[in-house]
């Protein structure tokens, strides 16, 4: 269930467009925030009801975009750019180091639910490669040595948010 205030905010947002469906991406983003970073089946039904489109349409959208998750993710999502400029500057070593440090492969979530590690398309920061994002924060010219510090930082940030 979602609070009535959130439902109303989302519904009002849809109403300010000439077609309510224009608001669907925003609605899913807000529901994902509400549900702790992913979209359970319940969120799909709620989005369909709020926006006024069939559930299958919402499912199509929720499974299409890179930043919607249909299964639980870690408290902090780490995305590593693996496009060409970062690749030339050693992104494979960065991913390998993160995998070793977290004990998971790219695409997985740590068993304690703290981190999810994913690849991402070019972050538009190619002159400062390799780049990764930890939550909303961009890190550039990342070296394996920096990663321990970055992870400690991320844990502090995640705790601060609670």
């Amino acid at each position, binding site marked *: 269930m979602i609070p009535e205030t959130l439902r109303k905010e989302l519904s009002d947002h849809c109403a300010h467009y*000439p*077609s309510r*469906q*224009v*608001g*669907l*991406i*925003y609605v*899913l*983003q807000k529901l994902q925030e509400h549900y702790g970073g992913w979209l359970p089946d319940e969120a799909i039904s709620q989005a369909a009801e709020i*926006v006024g*489109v069939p559930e299958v*349409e919402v499912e*199509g*959208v929720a499974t*299409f*975009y*890179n*930043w*919607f998750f249909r299964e639980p993710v870690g408290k902090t999502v780490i*995305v590593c750019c*693996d*496009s*060409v*400029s970062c*690749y*030339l*500057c050693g992104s494979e070593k960065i991913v390998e180091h993160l995998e070793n440090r977290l004990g998971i492969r790219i695409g997985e979530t740590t068993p304690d639910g703290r981190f999810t590690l994913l*690849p*991402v*398309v*070019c*972050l*538009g*920061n*190619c*002159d*400062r*490669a390799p780049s990764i*994002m930890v939550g*909303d924060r*961009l890190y550039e010219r990342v070296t394996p040595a920096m990663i321990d510090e970055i992870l400690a930082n991320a844990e502090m940030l995640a705790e601060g948010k609670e």
Partner: protein
Amino acid sequence: MSEKVLLKNIDPKNPQPVTFEQYVKNGGYEGARIALSKTPLEVQQIVKDSGLRGRGGAGFPTGLKWSFVPMDYQGQKYLICNCDEMEPGTFKDRALVYGDPHQLIEGMLIAAYAMQMTKGFIFIRYEYKKGAEILDRAIAEAEQHGWLGKNIQGSGFDFHLETHLSAGRYICGEETALLNSLEGKRANPRSKPPFPQIRGFLGQPTIVNNVETLCNIPHILAKGPEWYKKLGLNGNAGTKLMGASGRVKTPGLWELPMGTPLSVLLNEYAGGPSREFPFKAVIPGALSTPIFTPEQFDTPMDFDSVAKAGSRLGTACVIVFDEGDCMVAATANIMKFYARESCGFCTPCREGMQWIYDTVCAIRDGQGQPSDMQVLDDLSRHIAHTFCAFAPGAQDPFLSAITKFRHEFEEHIAKRTCSIAK
């Protein structure tokens, strides 16, 4: 260094948003003031006369594109800024948005007035969330000072602008896919015609322009088309943001005269090779363009010269490889990107990209068969029989890699190992 126009207020190494007051102090909103004193068609003519060509990659003349929008249309028309910068190797729109948000807002206001569009959206990629926040604050400032909203500066013209934070997918940068995405749908491209100028967002006349294109507009209005035309070299109009990444000593972003030779960008601005190896290849227009080898490095970086030399200017953010890079491994990296980001709508793209990726990986890992080159040749011809520009964009670097660096592929297959990567 030539005249700075778009980067006048921006340090590309550390872009910090210029406030409304600073922007105005540096001559901001003068272009809009001049535009509002003219008729919409006069503004369109000025942009046509300037010779400005779209900076998103296609290079279509901006004023001509605008002129396709019906001026007598009674319903709602929309102006959309494409800030879905995801072309690997490209990092120019980030600097413009993070550093000088009012320059983009002013450009959009002038464009909207020229085509009498009263609503606008800035479509921005998810990873530029901070950029969207910067734009939201700047939009609020512009509203407070009467440069957005109703009856702008007493002109009687209304323009409402808002940001749309995307949920992330490379294909959203294709303008018709972007329209579907903005409508709350999957970002599959639409067939053209009808072109968005006639039937775009929600079926209404719509213009989609790139960030850099729109950022040029205030300066063209403020200083005139003649001044603008003279900024470039050899008859090319304007400046161009150019970037360099990969194997260069000082990667970065610079504003240079349109038509600056690639070799000047590589050696004077980007500092030459970063390692002991000489340059081997450059992708001149960010990823989805054919690869250049050193004999093409003197090519002037403008739309026509790069096309004449067999590639495309694209976003003019070059990706540089040196003699220590294995082009088979690089091609595997490149094709992984396309295989993952294909929207899946057309079979040749959805299946073909993955097939190429798997085959190139096998060759890279010493598992290639002599018949694999035939497979790659066949696929290179067929993958681009598709609906939108994504697959032809993938075909460009791929076909040039297997043509220009064929010996590297053949050597990997024959020796079952790589002797190049360092």
